[in-house]
């Protein structure tokens, strides 16, 4: 048998989809958004206003955070959620307030949506003692457990079984709560996901697992890092699944409402592939050479915040002035948060050893 030439040996990923010459490459193909209006989804006008305020808050919080990062006000990683706000907002409005949410390191939007104040969030970014995690966690580790937001986690896929465990405890205690675990498309390749899906269905865990497929696992396009469609991961484990348009808050809300009711009722896991798009790089140091400006423009044309704003205006729910009022209020809230964070104290050095153990006077090896 003739030896193949070296040039014929190729480990470039042969994932799903094909390159189309000349066409704008899209990170994800969005399914059609729901056609339902807010009333038939069970959303009031006040709900919509609150949703708009929340999404705008997430957006402006991060834009200001980015500025502060660039000014050198804080260090570490900063993974921005900009573009994905409909996913957190639609979910949090659909779930019960005591359902348990856990996510990966792109967590600011989730935290804000679950009641971390702009002050607490910004202070955490700055590493201040007034932060939601007392300056111990930083950008990737926002948490507010009293509101059933269990935090952001920085090891890709590491929190997926933990989300299953939150559901396990809910089932054990028969408290009627479910868990919802969010992760990026990079995490679907981790063994932790596969082990968790298998166990979750074996044990009938009341858990939603949702990938926020924003098209890129850091700099690797989804079509280059995974074979088959991501949603099909569910098939191997006999789980129900659905693809959702994550650029439309109504579509996320509708899917989460239906799925959460089903999961709660039947105590079984469900996998959602929520397709969305992140406008910024993976983190602040990302030159984004893996995608085109045109691709980004395509998604910004269907921006989830603009989309909701248009709906509010077209349906005469809010006038321009009222929208402006909300935006001004949020703008001030975020500016105040920057000032609050800047003026807050760093944790005392004596706090270095705090929060390691449950007991008052723990042992530290020395």
């Amino acid at each position, binding site marked *: 048998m003739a030896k193949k030439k070296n040039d014929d040996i190729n480990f470039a990923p042969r994932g799903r989809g094909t390159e189309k010459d000349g066409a704008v490459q899209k990170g994800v193909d969005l399914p059609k958004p729901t056609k339902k209006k807010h009333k038939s989804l069970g959303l009031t006008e006040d709900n919509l206003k609150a949703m708009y305020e929340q999404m705008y808050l997430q957006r402006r919080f991060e834009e200001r955070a980015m500025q502060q990062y660039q000014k050198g006000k804080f260090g570490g990683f900063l993974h921005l959620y900009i573009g994905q706000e409909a996913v957190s907002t639609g979910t949090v409005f659909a779930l019960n307030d005591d359902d348990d949410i856990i996510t990966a390191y792109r967590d600011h939007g989730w935290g804000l949506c679950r009641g971390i104040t702009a002050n607490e969030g910004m202070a955490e970014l700055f590493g201040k003692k007034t932060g939601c995690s007392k300056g111990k966690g930083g950008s990737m580790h926002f948490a507010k457990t009293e509101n059933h937001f269990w935090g952001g986690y920085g090891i890709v896929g590491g929190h997926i079984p*933990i989300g299953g465990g939150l559901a396990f405890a809910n089932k054990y205690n028969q408290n009627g709560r479910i868990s919802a675990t969010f992760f990026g498309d990079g995490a679907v390749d981790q063994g932790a996901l596969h082990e968790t899906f298998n166990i979750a269905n074996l044990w009938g865990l009341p858990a939603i697992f949702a990938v926020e497929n924003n098209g890129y696992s850091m700099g690797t396009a989804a079509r280059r890092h995974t074979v088959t469609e991501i949603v099909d991961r569910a098939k191997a484990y006999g789980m129900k699944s659905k693809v959702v348009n994550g650029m439309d808050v109504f579509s996320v809300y509708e899917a989460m409402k239906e799925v959460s009711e089903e999961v709660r009722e039947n105590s079984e896991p469900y996998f959602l592939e929520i397709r969305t798009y992140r406008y910024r790089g993976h983190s602040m140091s990302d030159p984004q050479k893996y995608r085109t400006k045109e691709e980004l423009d395509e998604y910004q044309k269907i921006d989830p915040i603009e989309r909701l704003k248009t709906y509010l205006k077209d349906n005469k729910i809010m006038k321009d002035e009222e929208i402006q009022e909300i935006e001004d209020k949020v703008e001030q809230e975020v500016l105040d948060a920057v000032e609050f964070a800047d003026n807050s104290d760093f944790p005392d050095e004596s706090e270095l050893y705090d929060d390691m153990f449950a007991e008052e006077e723990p042992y530290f090896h020395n």
Partner: protein
Amino acid sequence: MAELQFREAIREAIDEEMAREEKVFIMGEEVAEYNGAYKVTEGLLDKYGYKRVIDTPISELGFSGIGVGAAMNGLRPIVEFMTFNFAVLAADQIINHASKAGYMTGGQITMPIVFRGANASAGQLGATHSVAFDSMYAHFPGLKVIYTSEPDDAKGLLKSAIRDDNPVLFMESEQMYGMKGEVSEEEDYIIPIGKGKVKREGSDVTVVAHGKMYHVAKQAAAQLEKDGVDVEIIDPRTVKPLDLPLIVESIKKTNRCVVVDEAHPFAGFAAEIGFLIQREAFDYLDAPVQRVTLPDVNAPFAKNLLDAWLPSPKNVIDAVNQVTYRN
């Protein structure tokens, strides 16, 4: 006192704590219907049912993470590993999550979870089934590590571990499950985590040894006694928090020390104890501290090589002779 096998002592601890607290449950491979790979959990399924005695697939990473999430959300899981050699697959959950989630969230999360199972070697099982992991886990802040040598210690300390609000690794030995020992019949018998024990009083040399190595040290001490050397054996029982004062106190009396450890030598338990002794008891030492550990070599399969690999009473005697200048 009642004479119990090691596995029975562990089972009693689990049983008593499950009876005492509804939030305690146990999961792991073969713990329920099979009655435990080493029969530690025998009878627990019949007593507590499928809600609290749970068979898992062979998915160490997955079920450990589910344990971590359940602990965060109010339960008190006991996660059994068939051996800690398999728990390497779950190390992300133990090292990255269980030990850190509380700290990273500024104390918003508590993690009352016990990871337990067999540790270290158990005969001719080859290199991947023979590693002692206690010092490795003790390296990481936020974890408590227990590796006991006798059924009585196991019962009292496992009960403490299950009641502890922090992640605790509780290590056992396949080769000791059938070993019998006197176990206190005191009601609700608790041994505090972090307290070592003088297992044999002596005046000539201190031997520090825990887990399976305690028994190697004990055999060496019996032999040395015939030669007129009076060995004191300290069993720390808990690797971390370490009962250093107990060790130092003994050295102040004997002025000599040998540490016996079933892990490899580099940066292990023996290395750490050696450092601590020079810092805390330098002026009391009449000889450099010696250690008996595994060599820096993987576990072999061949019986003769395995015997050469594993610390033996002979190795301990040689080390004692060295610190007492008897050779």
